[in-house]
């Protein structure tokens, strides 16, 4: 193929320019949020909006953290997210293993049932889930959040993990049979370790989901002591309607762990997502 090198350079340059412009559009709102948070308590919004604050101050962050129990909400969110992740990924891995390695009657039915639920908006179930939580005494408890979150994340995780496990080589498993091990041994010693990348992806998405879930947390919990971060942020906004800097400082504290995880574990976010999608 004959290419004009000069033309190619121009093309690439244009591409970079356009991509850069797009990236700016993506990131600008977030940067603006950061800059507003760093501006210190203001009741009057300034025009023209300034990106680089006149005086950088962490006052908003300090106030957000100290005002009513923010550290408590942070802890609640952490407990819920971690518990959900561990339980959901474990259960999904077991389910996925069953789907991937066994033939049994009812298998297709069960699998399609799980797949079918992916198409249903989870919010559809909020009314009966609410009543179920009431009957089981799970309202105003972190467990009530965890159980529902686990149920909501199992379908996607199972789907993701099944595709992965199916592709694992069977020779290792047969070796375990020969040595006298059972399914449990295979699962723990072979399947899980080999599935680490997929497990990591599932864990990350589950954690993300549980960390930022809002609607169920809003509906299931009305006691302040059990509140999670997303609800706290929205309430914060409602209580300080014009203090955007303060609200954004609180928001940034809330999404800090997520951003941190993202930067550290980028690979798993993106690779796992595409792998799951392509094999779907």
């Amino acid at each position, binding site marked *: 193929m004959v290419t004009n090198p000069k033309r190619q350079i121009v093309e690439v340059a244009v591409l970079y320019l356009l991509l850069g412009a797009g990236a700016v559009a993506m990131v600008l709102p977030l940067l603006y949020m950061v800059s507003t948070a760093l501006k210190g308590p203001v009741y009057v919004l300034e025009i023209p909006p300034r990106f680089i604050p006149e005086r950088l101050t962490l006052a908003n962050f300090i106030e957000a953290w100290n005002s009513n129990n923010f550290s408590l909400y942070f802890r609640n969110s952490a407990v819920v997210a971690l518990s959900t992740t561990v339980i959901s990924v474990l259960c999904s891995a077991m389910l996925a293993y069953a789907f991937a390695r066994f033939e049994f*009657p009812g*298998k297709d039915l069960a699998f399609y049932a799980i797949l079918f639920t992916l198409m249903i908006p989870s919010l559809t179930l909020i009314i009966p889930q609410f009543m179920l939580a*009431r009957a089981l005494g799970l*309202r105003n408890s972190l467990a009530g959040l965890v159980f529902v979150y686990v149920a909501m994340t199992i379908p996607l995780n199972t789907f993701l993990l099944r595709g992965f496990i199916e592709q694992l080589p069977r020779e290792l498993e047969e070796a375990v049979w020969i040595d006298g091990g059972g399914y449990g041994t295979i699962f723990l010693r072979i399947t899980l370790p080999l599935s680490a990348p997929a497990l990591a992806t599932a864990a990350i998405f589950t954690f993300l989901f549980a960390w930022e879930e809002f609607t169920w947390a809003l509906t*299931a919990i*009305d*006691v302040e002591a059990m509140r999670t971060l997303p609800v706290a942020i929205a*309430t914060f906004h409602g*209580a300080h309607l014009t203090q955007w800097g303060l609200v954004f400082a609180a928001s940034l504290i809330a999404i800090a762990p997520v951003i941190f995880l993202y930067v550290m574990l980028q690979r798993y976010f993106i690779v796992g997502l595409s792998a799951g999608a392509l094999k779907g």
Partner: protein
Amino acid sequence: MCQPKAFAFRIGIGWMLLALLAAACAPAAAPTPGPSPTPVVVERVVTPTPTPKGPVTITFWHAYNPEETKVFNEQVLPAFHQKFPNIRIEAQQVPYDEFRRKLLTSIAGGTAPDVIRSDIIWVPELAAMGALEALDVIMPDFNAYKEKVFPGPLSTNLWQGHYYGLPLDTNTRLLMWNKEMYAAAGIAEPPKTIDEFLRVCERIKALGRDKYCFADGGTYGWAVLPWIWSFGGDLTDPEMKTASGYVNGPDTVAAYEFLKGMLDKGYLHPGILGGGVDTAGGFARDEIANLLEGPWMPAIFAAQYPQKQIQWALMPAGKGGSISVVGGEDIVLFKQSRNKEAALEFIRFMLSPEAQLMMARAGQVPVRTDVIEQAVQAQPYFALFFEQLKTARARLPHPNWPKIEDLLTSTGQAILRGEKGAKEALDELAPKIDALLKQQ
């Protein structure tokens, strides 16, 4: 030969059937045979010893703003805890906008708080639902308190012959006028009538395109009723039986047309259409000349805009007089509460002169008749509020008020946006309100 395949397949189906079965047999709200609509059952409760044994926790929800919350947490609560060391109050601030939804959800979920500071307009609805205890039945010294409070606010607790709460604080809307903007427009005194008000607006508008004579947050009851009533109009007849002829009567129509005219001429800030308007900030920045505001404003301004002075005047009078809308909160006790004795102690405390005066300092107008003088001494501007309260009227004490208000708000929006003429829109609204009034 066994048939594991078929049997196991049945297990798979069995899961599904189990779920279906569970769903079919699941307990609904336990059905009790009874006529519908279910009448609210008021039980006679014989009250045991007044002092609870052992530490007891009472949950209390309120929607105090940050300044009021501060006074409540730093002065009222410690005083209570000192007096009743065995009772612990767990107070939760819930923003007003989500208060009702959150409360309803918690009632539905069986986790309602013990006591709340409820907007007066919610009490009939909560009482009709059967969620509240009738205080005149369960509280042996109810009458002692009944006699000490203003009758108007007290009446907001009345439902089908029983009192389901006690008033906690009351308020109304006064005209808050901007001395600096008035001076710039060459006006010395605030308007006494609506006609004078219009003339003020003309002069204010001359100050600039982005200067507004008046602003309000929407077309809900709290906002439009002072105008409707001062124009001589109303929503329903005094018995709340019918809205036709009232909500679409000539005076009500005139009130809405007045507001539309204000908007068209640029006197009324377009934020009333729902985009949100920073009324306090606008006032402080001399962009808005008049507001209808309540007694909490001085505390807010002291905290946020200490430079700006506030002036008060009565609601401009129209054909119907100078009539403003009564607001306020009642303190109510939930049937679901497990510590009613302790809760009653808290309610008594909140109605004591001590607590009432403490909250008065945060701008909460007290409801006890025996503390008026001290209150006015602490907050001189209360005097004008007490004046306006003499003629102020309450919003419909009907359990369907939230739904009625929803319709009223939408209609007001349609009128202000020019989508329908006032008469036309109100004519459409009347039968809908009639239908809601019939449902009790």
